[in-house]
């Protein structure tokens, strides 16, 4: 192998020049100065915030409201605090097993929630904690689930990737498996005539799974109200998109399915794109592919320092120049919607809310031993017994 490595030309793979999407978080311009803060006002997104495939881009002129921006800011800040709390709990060895954090990708989860309705459905795989909270869960429920406690949203039986709410069909431990499941959910919506949409999220890594393409085909064939959302954070575990995917323009991978690439760091752009996508699929246009170009600051999981396959400088540069929370903070301040002081207070509130939830979660007891045997089969239809480790641990229903 060593000799092979020597033969290999030391020329970096040339990526053909295309006009790239830009992922800055602070390039949205104010169109008219808002005089009345209770009324919506118009802002203009950067012209490279979207790229489209077989469809038009959403409008670059977006109406926003002060309340909504402030609420988004609070939510993003709270989500980041929650993920940081999970990080600390993991390092304190209170959370065991697998834990994947979405720090840096807040504009996707929060922007998605602001663009859809409670009746829409969302399903994803890893990095599901913010989605679970935004879709009606609680911070306490998520943290308790990570800690494996009774107060967890799956009663401590699921863990990091297995958190559900009535409109959120969970994270999922099998990369890519949630995409055809999402197609099925969308079919049920169509069948029941709900006029709602399903957002099936996956990463740039999962986009190379065969079943993702199977789901695309079925969704287009039957014109399902499904939005397939690729959260492209540029690395599938430890392999960069360029090294894993022949086509890194994930929004073009649906063949006949139109696609939309979105700056996933500017929450105004993400929310606007989600609204566009929701409208697209609920108006009977069939499925849509969406790619959020975003970035995760941490490693893939807690055991990955995240710096062996990318440089510290790269992470630092993204953090300092393209952070979604800082970007929104800047909009709010520059547009005179709130003072730095008021935003600091929101930060403090977020931290206090998360701290309180963590304490409450820690107080929750671990699941009862008898719950080891529940929820395997529907109650009353279980087999006569299930085996434990030893004879006296065999559980009889």
């Amino acid at each position, binding site marked *: 192998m060593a000799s092979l490595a020597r033969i290999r030309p030391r020329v970096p793979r040339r990526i053909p020049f295309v006009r790239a999407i830009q992922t800055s978080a602070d390039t949205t311009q104010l169109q008219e100065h808002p005089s009345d803060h209770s009324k919506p006002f118009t802002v203009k997104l950067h012209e490279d915030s979207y790229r489209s495939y077989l469809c038009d881009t959403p409008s670059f002129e977006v109406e926003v409201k002060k309340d909504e921006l402030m609420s988004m800011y609070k939510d993003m800040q709270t989500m980041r605090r929650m993920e940081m709390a999970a990080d600390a709990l993991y390092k304190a060895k209170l959370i065991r097993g697998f834990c994947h954090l979405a720090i840096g990708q807040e504009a996707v989860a929060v922007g998605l929630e602001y663009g859809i309705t409670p009746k829409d459905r969302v399903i994803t795989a890893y990095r599901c904690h913010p989605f679970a909270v935004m879709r009606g869960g609680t911070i306490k429920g998520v943290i308790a689930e990570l800690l494996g406690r009774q107060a967890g949203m799956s009663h401590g039986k699921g863990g990091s990737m297995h958190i559900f709410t009535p409109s959120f069909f*969970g994270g999922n431990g099998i990369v890519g498996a949630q995409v055809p499941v999402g197609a099925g959910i969308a079919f049920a919506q169509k069948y029941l005539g709900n006029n709602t949409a399903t957002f099936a999220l996956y990463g740039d890594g999962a986009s190379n799974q065969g079943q993702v393409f199977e789901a695309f085909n079925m969704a287009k064939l039957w014109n399902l109200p499904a939005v397939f959302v690729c959260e492209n954070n540029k690395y599938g575990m430890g392999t960069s998109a360029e090294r894993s995917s022949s086509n890194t323009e994930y929004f073009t991978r649906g063949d006949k399915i139109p696609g939309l690439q979105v700056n996933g760091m500017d929450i105004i752009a993400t929310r606007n794109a989600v609204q566009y996508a929701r409208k697209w699929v609920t108006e009977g246009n069939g499925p849509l592919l969406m790619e959020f170009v975003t970035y995760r600051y941490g490693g893939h999981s807690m055991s990955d320092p995240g710096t062996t396959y990318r440089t510290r400088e790269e992470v630092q540069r993204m953090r300092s120049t393209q952070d979604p929370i800082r970007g929104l903070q800047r909009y709010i301040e520059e547009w005179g919607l709130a003072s730095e002081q008021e935003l600091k207070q929101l930060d403090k509130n977020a931290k206090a809310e998360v701290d309180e939830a963590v304490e409450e979660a820690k107080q929750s007891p671990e699941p009862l031993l008898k719950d080891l045997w529940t929820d395997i089969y529907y109650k009353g239809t279980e087999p006569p017994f299930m085996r434990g480790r030893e004879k006296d641990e065999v559980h009889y229903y």
Partner: protein
Amino acid sequence: MIISSGVLARRTVKRRIPGFTIRWQSTTGVEPPPAGGHLPSVATSQYLRLTREAAFRTPGLSWADEDGSSPARNIVGGRETRKMNTYQAVRDAMSVAMMKDDTAVVFGEDVAFGGVFRCTMGLAEEFGRERVFNTPLTEQGIAGFAIGLASMGQTAIAEIQFSDYIFPAFDQIVNEAAKFRYRSGGQFNVGKLTIRTPTMAVGHGALYHSQSPEGFFMGASGLKIVIPRSPIQAKGLLLSSIRDPNPVIFMEPKILYRSAVEQVPIDDYELPIGRAETLTAGSDLTVLTWGTPVYHCEAALHMLADPPSSLERLIPPSLRSAKIELIDLRTILPWDVDTVTESVSRTGRLVIVHEASQTAGVGAEIAAEVQKRCFLKLHAPVKRVTGWDVPVGCQYEKFIIPDSLRILDGIMESLNY
């Protein structure tokens, strides 16, 4: 991936030469024995219920169309049966399920025009193409799609065209369907999911049309696996499977689609999941099997009691009066431990027959559990008569799956131990 349904059709080809009638010339005046001997086959099995009265006496049958508020009755007056083979019974079950449940949909490769085994024939015309539709050739996609549909509370009846093709969907079935309830702490489930798939050997299916994959799913707690042996069983068990609040894989022995014929009640009825059925009571040895081999076992029991002349010298007269108990397991997961261990505790001997290969097959699990629970009652080690540990080749398929002779040999070995 599709074999023509005609392959399985029994066709009698008559050769006619004008002006002549070719007749077998007898020199002794005695009719020759049929090619298969005088033994019972699927066509003549005593386990098939050929009259209306016998059909209504099917053990465990419960009518599902009676008023739920009144006590259970067993009035069969006014109820009717119709002669059906297994694929017609399967179709009938799906028709009943779809008629009563507006959310029920049937989908799979080629199901809209009837499916390769005709199990969905006419369903699309009856219920519309919105409810009975073809999918692309994407087994993993079908399973995932069905799981998503069922998680929304809809009744999803998916077909995997052959159980041999279920392996691409293995991840979805084992990791998603089986665990959906558990990993959501009971908030979500895919209990309304049923995956139908034809299974077992057909005589010439070869590597990818003759496998019996039920054993691979044994470790997936949360799933149920059901294998019927006859039309009445197929309809009742399929309706139970569709309505069972857990995901069920329903494997239909494909050779029995046409060959097994019974009078099947036309009304809505169910048979219990998780319960084995004792077909013949006995006291000296228990034979446990499911699906197609039920009929091979029946033939083996006849050979033992009344050996054909060619086998007479090989079967000691002392064994011929042995009373053999034959049990059809029906539900493979979770299997009916109580019925099996109760039987083996009485008989002291167990022979397990299945078509899948022996190593880590379902028989291994049953044998281990039985030897643990009945250790002091056993007179002989648990015997497994199974397919060989080889891929199912095309040419000698008959010799790879267990036939009546191998089952007879296994029974004798166990009795002689």
